[in-house]
């Protein structure tokens, strides 16, 4: 199973764009990259998933370079409500491998007024 590495914490001011990078050097051909967000006292919430290049939804963008050994979650113009822990996961959803992956420690994003 591919292991992921993320920064433990990040600070950002309101209104700024935040980029959180995740390293996954051992990503397999069939693995997808998925990001979750977790607020205190809540369960994680799905943000975005991608396989290659760029994916964008109403919440975030996910950039994946050609070698797929890393990925970057981009949050545009963050607000105080974006303060949370962000988890990067790598796994193959077609083989059940995704469900076996642990979430790791994630990146704790603190948005400052």
């Amino acid at each position, binding site marked *: 199973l591919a292991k992921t590495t993320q920064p433990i914490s990040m600070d950002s001011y309101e209104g700024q764009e935040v980029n959180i990078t995740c390293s996954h050097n051992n990503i397999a051909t069939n693995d997808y990259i998925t990001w979750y967000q977790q607020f205190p006292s809540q*369960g994680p919430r799905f943000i975005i*998933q991608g396989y290659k290049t760029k994916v964008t939804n109403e919440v975030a963008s996910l950039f994946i370079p050609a070698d797929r050994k890393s990925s970057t979650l981009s949050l545009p113009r963050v607000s105080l409500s974006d303060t949370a822990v962000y988890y990067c996961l790598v796994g193959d*959803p077609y083989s*059940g491998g995704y*469900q076996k992956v642990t979430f790791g*420690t*994630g990146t704790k994003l603190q948005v400052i007024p």
Partner: protein
Amino acid sequence: EAGVVQSPRYKIIEKKQPVAFWCNPISGHNTLYWYLQNLGQGPELLIRYENEEAVDDSQLPKDRFSAERLKGVDSTLKIQPAELGDSAVYLCASSLEVQATDGELFFGEGSRLTVL
């Protein structure tokens, strides 16, 4: 549409006592997961069900933990007897298919256990 419902939200017990957590997944979701989350850590999978069958319980400490999912809907996670180190948040999640191709797991708010 209702999300994943868990109860109780909080439970305080003394060590060696039993405890049980209940989970009601999103209607129609045939895959159900129980995760353990320690303070400052990410969730760790304990057990995964496909309908009523436990298809992955390799990380469930079977000497004191048990789980069941009768009729393939609600699920119960039990600890007996509880130890101090079991203090954590127990999260339940569900997904529409075993192979969640969109990668989306839906989590409940969790049950926070404190063992004294």
